[in-house]
């Protein structure tokens, strides 16, 4: 029997399929469509210290095999999350990963303290949201920023700290290393790629925010390349995501160097996508006589 279990930074995942932040809310809506116990974990919607209304509409624009979003971290704030949403998520076996964004290092620290005390399994420190002006991306584009936030969160967190990296940088590997050196126990990548679309009739951008983050199948090759580069440069585990919509995509992501795989946009197309991906992954392992999913991680054989 193939084994889907993954030990990720000391946290035991029953399956490697994790829902990507912002695409699955706090799990309630999709719980009508699938059994959340089938999932390895959920990265909850990006949280901020205080509630945020997010950006004005339109927030969605379709692109060839992808989509742009400019939601802008609309969320009820970290306290409301802990009070109203966490107890619901805790009914399930899946791991709860809290995704947090701040305007300052102090905000990240305040949130990390509250969330790790509240008993989430992992903190996902978002330094890569492209949709808020003074948001986390300010920290995600420099090695100093990544280091300062990671180190500060590490001083207060009692659970593993995972740093979510932005693809909107010249060299993602240096940022990844800075996060690792500052004490990050894991990395997640990629967040969305900054893009835009224009309505040719009105000459106006479709998104009210002008720009937004690209996700979906279109970004898979970029995500694979970045996960592959980062995995070769760091020793900490990786939650790899970006464009995964089939079991084969998930296998590619694991081969590139991911330990867990994240599924986001695929769910919008098919709410059962995470389960299909999980089953196809299991079938792949069985077909190839591979004992454990971890045997695939990083096993791509690069050309010389």
């Amino acid at each position, binding site marked *: 029997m193939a084994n889907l279990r993954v030990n990720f930074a000391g946290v035991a995942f029953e399956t490697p399929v994790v829902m990507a932040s912002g695409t699955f809310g706090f799990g309630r809506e999709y719980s009508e469509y699938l059994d959340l116990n089938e999932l390895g974990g959920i990265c909850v919607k990006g949280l901020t210290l205080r509630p945020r209304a997010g950006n004005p509409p339109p927030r969605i624009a379709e692109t060839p095999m992808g989509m742009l979003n400019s939601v802008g971290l609309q969320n009820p704030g970290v306290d409301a999350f802990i009070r109203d949403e966490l107890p619901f998520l805790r009914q399930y076996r899946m791991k709860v990963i809290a995704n947090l964004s701040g305007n300052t290092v102090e905000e990240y620290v305040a949130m990390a303290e509250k969330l790790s005390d509240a008993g989430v399994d992992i903190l996902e420190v978002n330094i890569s949201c492209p949709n808020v002006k003074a948001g986390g991306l300010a920290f995600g584009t420099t090695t100093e920023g990544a280091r300062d936030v990671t180190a500060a969160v590490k001083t207060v967190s009692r659970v593993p700290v995972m740093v979510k990296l932005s693809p909107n940088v010249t060299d993602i590997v240096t940022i990844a290393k800075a996060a690792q050196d500052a004490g990050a126990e894991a990395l997640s990548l990629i967040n969305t790629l900054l893009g835009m679309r224009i309505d040719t009739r009105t000459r106006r951008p*479709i998104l009210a925010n002008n720009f937004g983050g690209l996700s979906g199948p279109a970004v898979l090759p970029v995500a694979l390349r970045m996960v592959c580069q980062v995995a070769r440069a760091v020793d900490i585990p990786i939650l790899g995501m970006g464009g995964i919509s089939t079991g084969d995509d998930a296998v590619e992501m694991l081969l590139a160097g991911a330990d867990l795989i994240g599924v986001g946009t695929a769910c*919008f197309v098919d709410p059962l996508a995470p389960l299909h991906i999980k089953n196809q992954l299991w079938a792949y392992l069985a077909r190839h006589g591979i004992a454990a999913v971890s045997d695939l991680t990083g096993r791509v054989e690069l050309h010389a």
Partner: protein
Amino acid sequence: MQRQCDIITAQQLTDHIHAITLDAGDIGLAARPGQFVHVKCGDGVLLRRPISICDCREGYLKIVFEARGPGTQWLGEKKSGELDILGPLGRGFDLAGRNVLLVGGGIGVPPLLYAAREVIGIATAILGFRSADHVILQSHFREICKRVTITTDDGSFGEQGFVTGPLEHHLKQGGYDSILACGPTPMLQAVAALADTYNIHCQVSLEERMACGVGACLGCAIETNDGQMLRVCKDGPVFSATEVF
């Protein structure tokens, strides 16, 4: 619910408008007026397309849509086989009221048909179109409603002008307790303004670009008058006019 639904009939109503009836099983049985379905439009188009439920009887669900871009064009060419449907989604119309006015414009007319069928009291419809060759579903409304007024912008069919003319006329006469409206935003705003003047409760069905359609991604949020962000797909698409205009 998500389901592969058999296409029972597919018809072209006008140059650009199509109707498809589906055997929607549980989705059809659960559907309420004002709700919508999220339709997968082939493999080349990533996101689903939200389409209102035009009518529904015993699990047979009808959608009426305009072929605009790649998604709805693909749908217009689909004449048989199955459609991948997610639904019924959203919060539909509150159908209370003894004397209900249905006000629709263009491609906003279809969802009012199911509302007309299901209202508790009597329905009166005022339906606006661009011109005679854009008029749809007229005979269906006539079968169900006490009274149907059609307007066209150019006067080529029914009364010339916008729906607001006959609407004000009806409101002056009095006796109505509710308005249900669906159509382009400027029309909805004009209808809401009249509803306010005549102090009558008005519900409007809104559109916004969507990704998940189930309330999870916050892609379709709109701001209400009191500064709340509400999801068109989950908290709507039907809102009380005073909430949003």
